[in-house]
């Protein structure tokens, strides 16, 4: 494992008791038109629904943690555990039902535009206009974030060159590129807008080993040379162990542990043998809760 650089301890992200429900029973339309909102269920209790209606669920359940500036913070959890919902809440694509999150002091609900200027998100499937070329997509994204065309063009050539993308592909439609190449362009797009907080939602899922290694290298470079803070969700325990300063494990929407990979491993050590992070993950998501550094408690600001 490579050495981690000292952290700037100012907090980049503070998530405090954030909660998101889906499929709560709808109020009658006249109440909704009058601006009356659904009453939120008590913690641990979900309302019963009529036959045929979707079962209510709590996708993110009173999750709290803090991420220091310059940190690479991993969120680990099985499929459907609430990782992507958490990322979408932080990236202002969902509104929280309870709790709050602040990015460098800006509240995601009250200071939405300020938050949007500070963040960028790379999702599991690179979201591009498939008929447009990498360069056209990058220029579109850059202009949205206030980077001028000439400035973005120079930077895009430089970044795509470093990512190993061939010049011939710069003007070809994205749909003709492999998924690994598309994901590299997604990383390049994030570089281009210089986010201070980068949200990566399973950025290496489905990539070949070489592409995974390239993407990881760029994540670390983004942190080291661009002073970015990175929140990453992943299924890849080896990846999390290698690049994350700290990780949080989320299961059924609840945060069940946070700590450095080594802290988490030491917390379940058996017979003097240090387990792998994967062992930790399996133990934690098997309903055994471990509170390494106060997971589930509200973060200090």
């Amino acid at each position, binding site marked *: 494992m490579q050495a981690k650089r000292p952290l700037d301890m100012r907090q980049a992200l503070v998530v405090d008791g954030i909660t998101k429900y*889906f499929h709560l029973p709808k109020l009658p339309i006249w109440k909704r038109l009058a601006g009356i909102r659904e009453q939120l269920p008590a913690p641990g209790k979900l309302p019963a629904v009529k036959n045929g209606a979707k079962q209510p669920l709590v996708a993110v359940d009173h999750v709290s943690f803090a991420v220091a500036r310059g940190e690479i913070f991993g969120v680990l959890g099985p499929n459907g555990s609430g990782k992507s*919902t958490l990322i*979408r809440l932080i*990236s*202002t*694509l*969902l*509104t929280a039902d309870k709790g709050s999150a602040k990015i*460098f*002091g*800006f509240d995601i609900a009250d200071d939405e*535009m*300020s938050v*949007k*200027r*500070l*963040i960028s*998100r790379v*999702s599991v*499937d690179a*979201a*591009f*206009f*498939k*008929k*447009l070329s990498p360069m*056209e997509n990058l*220029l*579109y*994204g850059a*202009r*949205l*974030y*206030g*980077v*001028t*065309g000439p400035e973005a063009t120079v930077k895009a050539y430089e970044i795509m060159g470093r990512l190993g993308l061939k010049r011939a592909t710069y003007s070809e*439609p994205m749909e003709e590129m492999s998924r690994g190449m598309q994901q590299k362009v997604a990383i390049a797009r994030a570089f281009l*807008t*210089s*986010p*201070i907080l980068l949200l990566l939602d399973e950025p290496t899922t489905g990539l070949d080993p070489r592409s995974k290694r390239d993407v990881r290298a760029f994540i670390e470079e983004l942190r080291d040379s661009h002073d970015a803070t990175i929140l990453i969700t992943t299924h890849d325990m080896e990846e999390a162990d290698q690049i994350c300063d700290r990780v949080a494990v989320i299961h059924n929407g609840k945060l069940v542990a946070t700590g450095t990979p080594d802290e988490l491993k030491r917390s379940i050590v058996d017979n003097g043998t240090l387990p792998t992070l994967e062992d930790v993950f399996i133990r934690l998501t098997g309903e055994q809760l471990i509170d390494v550094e106060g997971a589930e408690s509200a973060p200090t600001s």
Partner: protein
Amino acid sequence: MPNRMTRGMSALRLNSLQVHAFLARNWHLTRRYWGWEVVWFFYSLTSGLSVVFIAQGAEALTGEAVGFDVQYLTMYLIIGTLVWRYLSAIFILTSEVIAWERWEGTIEYTLMAPVRRWVHLVGQTLYSLTYGLITTLIIGIAMALFFELDLSNANLIGAGAVILAGSLSLVGIGILASILPLLYPERGAQMTNVVEASFLLISGVYYPISVLPDWMEALARISPVTYVLDGTRAAILEGAPTSETSQFIVPLLLLGFVTLPLGLRAFKAAENYAKRTGRLKRVG
């Protein structure tokens, strides 16, 4: 803490860059989907010609008793075809502001960008106006190859003023319709087609609204398309002076002043609802 890229950048310059982003993106999409543009041009031209040929065939259909001016009816239908082509292009492109993002899977990326929603909509609207104007002009030129257009008595400036005023209303209604794909991810885009077809039926595109049943005629009187068509026909067919076209321009501007802010407010409310219920997902 401002973003490093936007620090010190004036709001006007930033908004202009963002509008440019949407204009350039839409132009590239139109260019890349050029095959569909050819198809739509051919479809619009042939359907327009088919309608106008009805005027040419009316005498043959009804026998020698026809007591109307074939040239007048031809111009009446050409104006209906071209004005509808322009207004429907504005409506469709404006109302597809969200639908495009859903089709391409970019809705989350675009809606989490630091862009004020009115800037986003201005970008889409400017493109729809430009696209609508250029494509309608091309179809108009192509139609002129088939029919003799008598513009000797036409007040083109007055017609242009009516169409410009009507564009505002259609943009507002387009924004209102664009919330459907926000609220209904799977069926919203189809719903906007129903709205468009309803305007075509009630607004007197190919016939005077007086032939409609009373309840439809009442709806036609609040449709901005009706006023655009009546005003354009008065200016081109009757040569009505620009001062007289104000009877069409004033209601159109009033409708625009109502539909534009209403559309923006409704869009924002729908976006908030979509964020609360998780409907901004890229798939679905």
